[in-house]
């Protein structure tokens, strides 16, 4: 990671960026930190085993300092989330400079990541993409009634902590469907099952970048990522659209979209 560190120091010294958002150790835990000078960069670490929703923190920093150019250290999934946030005008492409790092093969396998590296990488060996949909086919092979039972049982564990939404790098709305009193009763437990999770799942259809942070954040171990992977896959199958891949392509489910007229499975 020394080459990347040198590059970051150069960027800071030359005034190319005002700060670089990365991770550093605090009491033995990696926490996000905005490095503003090249001397402090010696504390910068790369967590090989865990991930952090760093682009969500970047949105908050950018809102405070809209005129500054900020660098951010991104993995493959975070790179995809940057593209989605650019598309949805949460960040400006000219004001954010991504510095790519690679994930190791072990993490890529654990995450079932189909692109474990960002578009630009300074150093390191690129991990092989993992195309593994066994988690989806496993559920799809169940008969309908059992599938319903499986999901209701899983959803029933929900404690409505909104963790999956808060950690999600593709969720940024100021007013959330999951807090709309006409759809989800405010306060009160348990949440409306199963539509509480299905509302979010549908929202993720042309946005989910498949990072899996939602499932890692869930304190009850609900396999929500399977739902989002499913809708992501069906958008891919129906419209040949992959979220987080191309900055200039708009999602097929956005009302204004890219202005083209097409039907599922016909166009594109």
């Amino acid at each position, binding site marked *: 990671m020394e080459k990347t560190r040198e590059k970051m120091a150069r960027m800071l010294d030359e005034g190319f960026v005002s700060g670089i958002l990365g991770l550093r150790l605090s009491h033995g835990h990696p926490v996000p930190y905005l490095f503003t000078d090249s001397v402090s960069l010696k504390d910068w670490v790369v967590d090989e085993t865990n991930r952090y929703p760093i682009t969500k923190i970047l949105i908050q920093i950018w809102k405070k300092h809209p005129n500054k150019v900020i660098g951010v250290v991104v993995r493959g999934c975070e790179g995809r989330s940057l593209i989605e946030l650019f598309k949805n005008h949460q960040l400006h492409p000219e004001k954010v400079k991504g510095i790519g790092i690679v994930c190791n093969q072990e993490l890529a396998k654990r995450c079932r990541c189909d692109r474990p590296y960002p578009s630009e990488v300074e150093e390191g060996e690129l991990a092989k993409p993992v195309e593994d949909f066994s988690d*989806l086919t496993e*559920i*799809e092979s*169940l008969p*309908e*009634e*059992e*599938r*319903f*039972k*499986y*999901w*209701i*049982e899983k*959803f*029933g*564990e*929900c*404690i409505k902590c909104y963790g999956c939404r808060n950690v999600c790098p593709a969720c940024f709305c100021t007013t959330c*469907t999951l807090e709309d009193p006409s*759809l989800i009763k405010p306060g009160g*437990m*348990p949440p*409306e*099952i*199963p*539509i509480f999770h*299905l*509302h979010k*799942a*549908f929202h993720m*259809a042309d946005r989910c970048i498949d990072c899996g942070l939602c499932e890692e954040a869930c304190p009850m171990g609900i396999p929500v990522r399977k*739902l989002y992977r*499913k*809708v992501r896959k*069906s*958008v891919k199958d*129906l*419209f040949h659209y992959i979220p987080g891949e191309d900055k200039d392509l708009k999602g*097929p*489910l956005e*009302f204004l*979209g890219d202005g083209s*007229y*097409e*039907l*599922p*499975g016909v166009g594109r």
Partner: protein
Amino acid sequence: MLPIRVMCSGRISPHFILKAFQEGADGVLIAGCHIGSCHYGKGNYITANRVAVMKDLLGFVGLSPQRIRLEWIATSESNKFANVISEFTKEITQLGPSPMRKVSWNRKAERVMEPLVLQP
């Protein structure tokens, strides 16, 4: 059957469909203008796209996708409207009541809410 009138099939948010199922609907029929004749330009295109994804999602969680039907019915096609509705109700009757009706507040979730009793 409970008709809900909206200005355009593009007005039907996917959340409405989910809400209908949560409230105990056995099926949801979405009737819109024919492709190409949308007053608002592309309202029915977006509906077609949404319904296709919604069917996939509902199928995945174990609600039969046949419970959603999208049909293009113009203002003058009253016969088609009647036919589609009787056909759809017949289909839904064969499928039986929606499994969502049986979902009361889940026992597991209630267990989480039980007050913590401290042992002396």
